[in-house]
């Protein structure tokens, strides 16, 4: 019997017990993670945890376990919650909405709708062909990758509630404002004409219709596996680079060049972040290490947003439906929004 079949076969009571045991195991593992590595590396192996090698290795092992646990837990919960929402329902909610309120709703729905950037193109066509305004569609497409469960899980685990809320607020703002600006620019002529000519036929299938709790839980378990399989290389590289910075980079190196005193720091961070292709999992261990080295939060959040929101592979996909001119404008508007958010946070905090 596979895990999925066992869940299918489970009775409601057994399912509840299973979930309870899983949650308890999760909390215990999360709590013993630091003492365990302190003990293993410090007492058993006997390395100096304050030294470069010791602190680097400790950071790598401790962070790998912690991040994997956080991701597993939060992806599961978010997937189960999101199984109540669907792109089809989102489109129905956005249809006929004007710009303004539409952008706000689109950004919010972008956060809660289960969506992967691999579906960006069919969703774009589906939205626009159904009459959702271009700018509103853009708000959805910006918010969706920017505020994702992986980013939220890691931000919360590594920095706590405050920076997480800041990031979510900033992400929503960037998505709403960028969508409004793109809508105002009247860019419809830079959309490939076939998008408007697409006739929506066929019965729209709501992919979440008729799901049982068993199905939702199974989807959650599968999603954890799928995402972890997909992002672990990024995670290992990210934590590795983070560990190197943690253990070896001179204490004031980054603070000198990208610290609060450098007025161009946010601009540079965004310029570096846009072409970088990674995801929240790869970038956050790095952000954590840089934060420890004294970089301001606004600069770091702007860097992270630039990496997560704008990625070359997604832009290449979007080229199928958007002409180069619109893609360039899209990148420019979103990047400008992120830069502003970065400066704002650096000024306020």
């Amino acid at each position, binding site marked *: 019997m596979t895990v999925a079949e066992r869940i299918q076969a489970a009775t409601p009571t057994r399912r509840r017990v299973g979930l309870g045991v899983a949650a308890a195991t999760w909390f215990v593992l999360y709590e013993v993670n630091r003492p365990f590595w302190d003990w293993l590396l410090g007492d058993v192996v006997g390395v100096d945890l304050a030294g470069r090698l010791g602190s680097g290795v400790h950071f790598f092992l401790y962070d790998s376990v912690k991040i994997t646990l956080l991701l597993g837990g939060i992806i599961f919960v978010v997937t189960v919650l999101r199984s109540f929402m669907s792109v089809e329902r989102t489109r129905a909610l956005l249809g006929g909405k004007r710009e303004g309120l539409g952008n706000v709703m689109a950004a919010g729905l972008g956060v809660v709708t289960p969506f992967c950037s*691999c*579906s960006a193109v*069919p969703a774009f066509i*589906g*939205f626009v062909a159904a009459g959702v305004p271009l700018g509103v569609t853009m708000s959805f497409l910006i918010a969706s990758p920017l505020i994702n469960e992986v980013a939220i899980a890691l931000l919360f685990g590594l920095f706590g509630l405050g920076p997480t809320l800041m990031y979510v607020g900033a992400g929503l703002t960037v998505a709403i404002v960028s969508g409004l600006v793109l809508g105002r620019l009247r860019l419809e002529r830079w959309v490939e004409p076939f998008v408007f*000519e*697409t006739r929506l036929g*066929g019965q729209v299938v709501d992919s979440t219709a008729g799901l049982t709790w068993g199905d939702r839980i199974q989807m959650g378990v599968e999603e954890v596996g799928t995402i972890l399989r997909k992002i672990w290389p990024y995670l290992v590289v990210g934590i590795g680079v983070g560990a190197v910075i943690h253990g070896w980079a001179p204490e004031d190196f980054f603070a000198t060049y990208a610290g609060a005193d450098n007025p161009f720091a946010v601009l540079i961070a965004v310029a570096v972040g846009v072409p970088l292709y990674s995801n929240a999992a790869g970038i956050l261990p790095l952000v954590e290490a840089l934060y420890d080295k004294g970089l301001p939060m606004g600069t770091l959040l702007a860097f992270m947003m630039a990496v997560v929101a704008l990625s070359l592979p997604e832009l290449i996909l979007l080229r199928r439906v958007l002409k180069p001119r619109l893609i360039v404008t899209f990148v420019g508007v979103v990047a400008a929004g992120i830069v502003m958010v970065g400066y704002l946070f650096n000024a306020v905090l």
Partner: protein
Amino acid sequence: MKIKVLGPGCANCVNLERATREAVASLGIEAEIEKVTDYAAIAGYGVMRTPGLVVDDQVVLSGRVPTAAGVREILAPLAGGGATRP
């Protein structure tokens, strides 16, 4: 029956195609399986999350990849009339 697998060629679409072929083989039905990779055509079916599965021009699944057993459950009742069991 005519089965179409909708998807631009991502990993999920390949997985769905494999699951579908397995399901068809194990049900022993005669089906023509076609891949649809054109975005306009995919969107034309009303599918916004790939991959999608279309049977005789009806969308039966979108946005997730079931197991071969899952596809079999979907196909079995639809195969009714046109099925030819060996």
